[in-house]
C-alpha cells in the first residue's frame, strides 16, 4: 500500500485535478437560492397526455375513446373539465393539497414523430434536433452560483449512464444501485492514481467516488422497485450536501398496443415513485420542484391494435412544496376532427420549453428571460409565470 487513504480523502484529492472550467457566465440571482432542489423525471417513449389527464368535459373524448371512459368514472376531477388517471393516487392527493399541477396540450417545438429526435430536442433544449450538443439541465448547473467554497451545485442522474439532458461541460454524476461486490479500497486507490493523468477518466472517476459516498449502503440492487427508486432519489437530494439538481428516467411509455393496460402499469410506477419521493423528502419538499415531461404525445384515436401511435401534444406534471398547485394550465384546443394537429394529434398550445424555463426560473429566483435564452435558445417566446408561489 502506498498510503492509507479513506474514500473521502480520495475524493478530496481527486477534486484538485478535476475542477472543470466553465466558459458560460454565471447568472446573477434575484434572491438567495438556499438549497432549492429540482428533480426532472423524463418519460421516454411518449407518454399519452390524454390518458394522464383525460378531458372528460370535452364531448369529443367520449366519441373518440369510448372504451377509456370507464377508467375515469370515479376518478378525481381537475378543474372540472379534466379527470386524473386513477393510477395517479399520490399525484392526485398532491393536486388536492396544492402540491401538484398539470399542463395540458403541451409539447416542445418538435413537430415530427421520431422518439429519438423528439427526446434529443427535449433534452438538449435546442430549437432543432441535434443543434445543441449539451443538455439544458447541464447548462442550468453552469448558470447557477457557486457555493462559498467555489463549487457548483451538485447535479446527479439516477441512472447507470449519463442522460443527454445532463451531459455537458458542467460537472455532473450518475448513480444507480448495483449488485456488484464493491471493489477493495486498495484497488480503488490504485485506480485513482492510474487515472490521475487522464482528464476524461480522472473526472469520471472522481465524480463516481463522490456519488458513491453520498449513496453509501442504499441496500438496493437496481432501480426496478419504483418506491425504492423514489426514496433513493430523495436520500440523494434532501441533505445539505446532497444533489441540488437530479434527474431520473422512466421508459416504456410507447403504447402502440393495449394502451390502457400499458399506461396503467406505467402510470402506477410513476405515481409510486413520485409519492415515495415526496414523502421521503420530508421538510426539504418545501424547497423542491419536480418536473415530469415526455418527448411528445400520442395519436388521439386508437390504432388498430388498441394502442396509439406517435403524436404531438401531451401533458406535463409539475409538483413541489412551493408551487401554485391544484390547477390545470391549458389552452384547450379541442378534439374535433378539425381541431387536431394534422388530423390525428392533440394540437399543442403551450410550449413545454416555456413551462420548464418559467417554473425553473421562479423556483431558483433566476431571471426568466435570461434563463430561457440559456436553456432554450432561439425560441422567441416568453417563459410561463405563476407556477411558483414565491
Amino acid at each position, binding site marked *: 500500500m502506498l498510503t492509507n487513504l479513506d474514500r473521502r480523502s480520495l475524493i478530496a484529492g481527486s477534486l484538485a485535478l478535476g475542477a472543470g472550467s466553465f466558459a458560460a457566465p454565471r447568472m446573477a440571482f434575484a434572491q438567495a437560492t438556499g438549497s432549492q432542489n429540482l428533480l426532472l423525471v423524463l418519460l421516454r417513449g411518449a407518454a399519452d397526455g390524454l390518458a394522464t389527464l383525460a378531458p372528460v368535459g370535452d364531448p369529443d373524448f367520449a366519441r373518440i375513446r369510448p372504451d377509456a371512459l370507464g377508467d375515469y368514472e370515479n376518478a378525481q376531477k381537475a378543474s372540472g373539465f379534466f379527470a386524473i388517471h386513477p393510477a395517479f393516487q399520490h399525484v392526485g392527493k398532491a393536486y388536492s393539497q396544492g402540491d401538484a399541477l398539470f399542463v395540458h396540450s403541451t409539447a416542445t417545438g418538435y413537430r415530427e414523430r421520431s422518439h429519438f429526435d423528439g427526446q434529443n430536442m427535449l433534452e438538449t433544449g435546442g430549437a432543432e434536433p441535434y443543434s445543441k450538443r449539451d443538455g439544458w439541465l447541464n447548462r442550468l448547473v453552469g448558470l447557477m452560483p457557486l457555493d462559498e467554497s467555489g463549487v457548483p451545485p451538485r447535479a446527479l442522474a439516477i441512472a447507470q449512464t449519463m442522460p443527454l439532458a445532463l451531459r455537458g461541460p458542467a460537472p455532473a454524476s450518475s448513480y444507480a444501485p448495483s449488485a456488484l461486490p464493491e471493489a477493495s479500497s486498495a484497488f480503488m486507490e490504485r485506480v485513482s492514481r492510474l487515472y490521475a493523468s487522464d482528464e476524461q477518466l480522472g473526472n469520471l472517476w472522481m*465524480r463516481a467516488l463522490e456519488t458513491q459516498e453520498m449513496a453509501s449502503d442504499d441496500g438496493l440492487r437496481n432501480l426496478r422497485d419504483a418506491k425504492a427508486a423514489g426514496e433513493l432519489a430523495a436520500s440523494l437530494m434532501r441533505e445539505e450536501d446532497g444533489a441540488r439538481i437530479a434527474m431520473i428516467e422512466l421508459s416504456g411509455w410507447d403504447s402502440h398496443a393495449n394502451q390502457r393496460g400499458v399506461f396503467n402499469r406505467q402510470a402506477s410506477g410513476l405515481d409510486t415513485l413520485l409519492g415515495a419521493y415526496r414523502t421521503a423528502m420530508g421538510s426539504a419538499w418545501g424547497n423542491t420542484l419536480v418536473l415530469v415531461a415526455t418527448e411528445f404525445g400520442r395519436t388521439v384515436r386508437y390504432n388498430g391494435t388498441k394502442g396509439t401511435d406517435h403524436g404531438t401534444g401531451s401533458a406535463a406534471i409539475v409538483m413541489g412544496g412551493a408551487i401554485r398547485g391544484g390547477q390545470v394550465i391549458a389552452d384547450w384546443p379541442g378534439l374535433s376532427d378539425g381541431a387536431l394537429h394534422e388530423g390525428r394529434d392533440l394540437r399543442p398550445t403551450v410550449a413545454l420549453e416555456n413551462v420548464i424555463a418559467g417554473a425553473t426560473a421562479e423556483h431558483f429566483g433566476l431571471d426568466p428571460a435570461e434563463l430561457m435564452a440559456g436553456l432554450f435558445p432561439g425560441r422567441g417566446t416568453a417563459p410561463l409565470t405563476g407556477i411558483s408561489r414565491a
Partner: protein
Amino acid sequence: MSAQTSVASVALNRFGYGIRRGAEPPGDPMRSLLRQFDAYDPSPIALKDREDTSSEAGKILQMIRENRRNRKDSASEMSESMRTSNPITGLPTDVKRAYVRGGEVLRHDIALRTNIAVTSDAPMVERLVHFWSNHFSVSAGKPGTQHQVGNHEFGAIRPYVLGKFSDMLRAAVLHPAMLLYLDQFQSVGPNSQFQKRRRGRNQNGPRGLNENLAREILELHTLGVDGGYSQTDVTEFARALTGWTIPGLSRIERFSELQPTGAAFVRLAHEPGSRKVLGNIYRDNGPSQAVNIIDDLATHPSTARFVATKLARHFAGDDPPAGLVTRLETDFRRTGGDLASLSRTLIEAPEVWTEEPVKFRQPYEWLIAVLRMTGVEGLSARRVSGALRELGQVPWRAPSPAGYDDKAGSWAGPDALYRRVELAEQIARNAPSENLMARAEAAFPGALSDNTRLWLSRAESGAQGLGLLLVAPEMMRR
C-alpha cells in the same frame, strides 16, 4: 514507439475485440483483417447444436391471450392485474413457467453469442455481426420475444454480414422477432377480409392498422429520419405490411403461408390494393408487396448515406470524417450495398488507422475484450447476463428500436466506469496473471502508455496488476 506496431494495436482493438491470452500481435495488420473474411464462420458448431425454440413464441402469446380471455370473466381479478406493476404476478403456473423458460433460453443465447466473440479468430467480423444486430435492434421485453431475438441475430444477421444489405434488410425486418417487437404481428388491413368479417359480426376487437414497424424501417433501418419520407409514406407502407405476422397463432394458423424469413403471411389480414410509397406504385401481390418496397428502400440513396454514416461512426469516431462517409456512400451505391466491399473500404481507409483512440468502448465490447485478454471462457449463462446487466448493456435489450447508442456520451459515465472497476477486480482475482507486462505490451503493441506501464509495475500483486490492466485507459478506448 514504431508506427508499424501501433498499427497492430488499431487492428486488434479498433477493428477487433482485443488480443486473446497467449496470442501474438499480427505481423501484417491490414492483411490480418482481410483474412478474417475467410476465417469467419456464420454458423459455428455452438450454433448448430443450439436448440431452436422459436415456435414457443406463438404458443406463449396464445397462452396469454387465453388467460386474458378467461380473466375477463372475473372483473375483480382483471382490475387486480391492471393495478400491479409487475405483469407476471397473478399469472397461472403454466404461463409463469413459460416466462421462466423464455428467460433461460435468452440467457443461453446471450452466453452463446458472447462466447463466440470471445473465442473468435475473426473478431472484426463478429464486431460487424454485433453492429448490424444493433442496427436492426430487437428487444426481448414482450412475451415470446425471448425465443426469437437470438434466432434473429443467428439467422437474419450472421449469414449476411459480408453479403448484400438488401438480403439482410429483408431477413431482419420481416423476421418474427421484429414483427413481434414492433407490433406488426397484430396489424390488420382496415379493408381486409378479416376486418370486414369482424365488422359483419359487430366485433370491435383490437384489430387494425399499426404503423410502428413501417415507421422504424424508414427511420432506423433504411432512409434515416431526414431521408425524405412523409407520414403518408409511413401509412402506405404500413398498409402494405399488413398480413405479415408470426407463425403459431392457432386461430389464424390454417390461413397462414410460411415465408422464407420464418414469418407467416395471412392473406385475409392484408389490406387490398396498390400502394404508393416514395412516389412508386406497388401493385398488390400479397406478401411480395411489402418485400418489393423493402427492396427499393435497400438501395435508396438516403439508405446509402445513412448506413455509411453509421459504419464510419463505429470505426472512425463519434463525429465521422466526411471524406470517409462519402467514400462508403459511393461504395454502397456502386455495389448496390455489398457489405464485404464496405468492410474492405473501412479496412483501407486511412481515417480508421489514426494512432489516437477514436472510440470509448461500450460495456459489451469492453467485457468481450476483458474475457479475451484474461482467457476466461465458458462463463455460465447466468454470470454473463448478470455481468452485462450490471454493466448496463445486455444484448437484445436496447431501450429503444434505435438500438444502443454508438457515441461516448452514452457510455462514459461515472457510475458506468465505477461498475467496470468493480467487475475488473472480481474477474482479475480468478484469472491467471502471469507475464502481465508482456501481455500488456502484446495487447497494445506500441500503444501502451508509460503511465499504465508504471502503475502495472507497481502493483502489489499479479491479480491487482491484471485488474488495473483491465481498466487502464488503453482498455477503455479503442
